[in-house]
C-alpha cells in the first residue's frame, strides 16, 4: 500500500519533470542549443497562473490554456532575444544568453511578486480521493492527467500532423528541410514556443502543491539537464525516462528503509538512504553513465546512415 503511494507520488513528480525535460530537449534538438533558462521558465509559469488568478479569479481549469498560450508567447520572445541573434555563434554563447534571461526572469519575479513562497490556484480544486490509506490529491491527479495529455498531444502533433513532422525534419537536418520548402526559422521559433509552454504548464501544476518562489529555477534546470543526459541526449522518449528516473530517486529511494524495514538494522546507522545520500547516489550514477555510456539510456544511434 505504502509502496503504491510512493509510486504515485513519484509518477506525479516525474510527470511534471517530464514536461520540463521535454521542453528542454525539443529546443535542444531543433537548435543544438542548451536553454539554460528552462528552469526559471517553470517558475514563471507558476507565477503566471497566480497573476492571472489574482487579476480575474477564473476556475483553475481555465488557467491552463491561458498559461499555455502566454508561455508560448514568452517562448517566442526568448527565441527572438536569446537565440536568433546568436545563431551563427558557438553554442556556449546561447548558454550565456539564456543564463542572462534566467537572471532577468528570477529577479523580475522577485520584484513583482516578492520572495515569499506562494501558491498558484488549483486546477481541479482542492480535495483528494482516498482509497484505503492511499491519498490521491486532485491536484496530483491533475498533474498526471495534464502531463499525460500534453505528452500524448505532442506525440500526435509529431507523428500525425504536417507541422509536427516538419518540426522533426527541421531538427534532423535543417539545411535540407529548408531546401524542401520548410520555413526553418519559423519552425525553430515554434519549437521554442512549445518548449517554453511545456515548462510553464509544469510550473503552473507544481505551484499548487509545492509552492513557487523566485529561486526555484536552478533546481528544475539541473533536473532537466540531468534527465535529458541520462535518458539520451536528444531523445524525446529518453527525456521522459530520465525524468521518471529522477523522480524515482527523489521519492522512492529515500523511502526504501520504510518500505523494507529489514534494511534499517543492516545499515547500522550508515546514512545510505537519507535525502542527501539519494542525491549522491544519483550523481554517481550520472557520472557512471557519462563515462561508460555517454549517449544515455535511450540515446541509441537513431541517426545511423546506411
Amino acid at each position, binding site marked *: 500500500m505504502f509502496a503504491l503511494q510512493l509510486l504515485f507520488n513519484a509518477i506525479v513528480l516525474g510527470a511534471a519533470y517530464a514536461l520540463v525535460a521535454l521542453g528542454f530537449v525539443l529546443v535542444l534538438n531543433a537548435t543544438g542549443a542548451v536553454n539554460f533558462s528552462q528552469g526559471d521558465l517553470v517558475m514563471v509559469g507558476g507565477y503566471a497562473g497566480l497573476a492571472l488568478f489574482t487579476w480575474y479569479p477564473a476556475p483553475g481549469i481555465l488557467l491552463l490554456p491561458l498559461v499555455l498560450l502566454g508561455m508560448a508567447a514568452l517562448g517566442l520572445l526568448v527565441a527572438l532575444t536569446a537565440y536568433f541573434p546568436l545563431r551563427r555563434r558557438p553554442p556556449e554563447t546561447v548558454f550565456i544568453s539564456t543564463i542572462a534571461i534566467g537572471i532577468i526572469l528570477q529577479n523580475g519575479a*522577485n520584484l513583482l511578486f*516578492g520572495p515569499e*513562497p*506562494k501558491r498558484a490556484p488549483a486546477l481541479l480544486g482542492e480535495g483528494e480521493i482516498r482509497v484505503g490509506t492511499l491519498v490521491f490529491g486532485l491536484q496530483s491527479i491533475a498533474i498526471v492527467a495534464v502531463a499525460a495529455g500534453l505528452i500524448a498531444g505532442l506525440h500526435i502533433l509529431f507523428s500525425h500532423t504536417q507541422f509536427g513532422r516538419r518540426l522533426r525534419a527541421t531538427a534532423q537536418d535543417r539545411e535540407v528541410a529548408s531546401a524542401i520548402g520548410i520555413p526553418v526559422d519559423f519552425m525553430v521559433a515554434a519549437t521554442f514556443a512549445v518548449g517554453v509552454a511545456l515548462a510553464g504548464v509544469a510550473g503552473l501544476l*507544481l505551484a499548487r502543491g509545492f509552492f513557487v518562489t523566485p529561486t526555484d529555477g536552478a533546481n528544475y534546470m539541473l533536473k532537466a539537464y540531468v534527465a535529458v543526459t541520462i535518458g539520451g541526449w536528444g531523445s524525446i522518449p529518453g527525456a521522459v525516462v530520465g525524468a521518471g528516473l529522477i523522480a524515482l530517486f527523489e*521519492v522512492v529511494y529515500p*523511502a526504501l*528503509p520504510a518500505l523494507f524495514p529489514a534494511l534499517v538494522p543492516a545499515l547500522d546507522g550508515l546514512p545510505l538512504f537519507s*535525502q542527501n545520500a539519494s542525491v549522491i547516489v544519483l550523481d554517481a550514477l550520472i557520472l557512471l553513465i557519462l563515462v561508460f555510456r555517454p549517449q544515455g539510456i535511450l540515446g541509441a544511434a537513431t541517426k545511423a546512415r546506411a
Partner: protein
Amino acid sequence: MKRIAAACLLLAAFAHEANAVEITIPVLVPLTGFLATEGASQRNGAILAMTTPPAGVSVTYDVSDTGVSPEVAVNALERAAGEAPLAIVAPMLGTQMLAMLPVALEYKTPLLTISGTAAITRQGNPYVFRFFPDDATTKTAQVRYALESKGVKRPAVIYQTTAYGQSGHAEILKALKRAGIPPVYEEALDVSVKDMTPVLAKARAAGADALLLHLHSGPSALLLKAAASGGYRLPIIAGSGLSQPSAVDLLEPSELADVCAETSSSPISAETPAMRSFLDAYRRRFNADPDGFAVAQYDGVGMALEAVAKGATTPAALTQALASTSYAGLAMTYRSDGHGDMAHSAVIICYDGKTRIPTVVAHYTNDAPD
C-alpha cells in the same frame, strides 16, 4: 512688532530643529536569494522603527541588498561604514555576519542584527548586538515544551541542510541530550525537497511520537501539508520558519491542528496593546503581516534610537549604551549578556486548527549564566 515676533518664532522653530539629532542607519539585508523573505522582514521592521523615532531624533536610512555571498555583504558594509553612520542593521545570514565582524571592528560601528548563528557573539567582537534569541535559547524552548508540556518521549528531528538548519539541529541535539532523551530519527532536507512522504514514513517507522522541525518557511509548510494528508496524527513542534506569515498563509487552518512553533515573539497574536498597534502600523505600511524577525529588528533599532534620544549620538557612545543598558521592547526586555546577545527569551505559539492566528502558550527565558 509683528515682524520681530515672526522672526522670533522662526528663530525658535530653527532652534527647535537644531535640537533634533539627525542620524543615519544603513540597512544591509538580503533582498535577493533564498533568505529574501527574512531579509524583507528585517528591512520592514527596521524601517518602521526608523520612521517612528522618539522625539528629537530624525533618521535617514539607506537600504542595500547583501544577496547570499559573504563578499557582497562585506562590500556593502564597507560602503555603508565608509559614510560613518551611527549604527548599521546587519543581515541575519550567519556566514555574512561572520565575514562582516572584522570590518565592524575596524570601523568601530555597532551592528544591529537578528542572526541566530551562535558563533557571531563568540568572536569577542564588542560591536555585534543580536536582538534575536540565539539558537540555544529557541531550541531549548522548543525541546522543553515538547518534552515537558507535550510529554514527548520519542522525538524525530527534521532539519534543513542550510546554515540555519544545521545550527538549529546542533542545539536541538544538545537540549535533548541534557534531558536524556535521544532522537529516534534524524534527517536533513535540502530546501528543494518537494515530496515529504519518505521522511515522514521513516520517522513513523522509527516509532516517533512527535516531530521536531527546524526548516525554512516553505519546507515547513510542505511538511505540514504532507503530514496532514498522509494521516500522520503526530504533534509537531516546529522552528521559527513556520511562524512566518508567509508559511502559515500557504496552509489551511486544519493542517495546523496540533502544531506549535518556537519564535522570538508572535506579533500576529497581538498579546499586548503595544504589539497590537505595531501590528496595525506594520499592516498599514507594508500591506503584509509581520513575524518575529520584524519585531526583533524593530526592537533592536528602537533600542538604538532610544539610546540616541538619551544622548548617545556617536557610535562609541551608542555601543556603550547598547552594551550596558536594558530596553523594554515589544517582544521582551533586551539586555546584553556581555557578548552582544540581547534577547534571552523565546515563546511557543500553538495553532488550534481553526484559524491561522496562533496563541502564545509558553514563555521561556534563558537565565543560564555564561
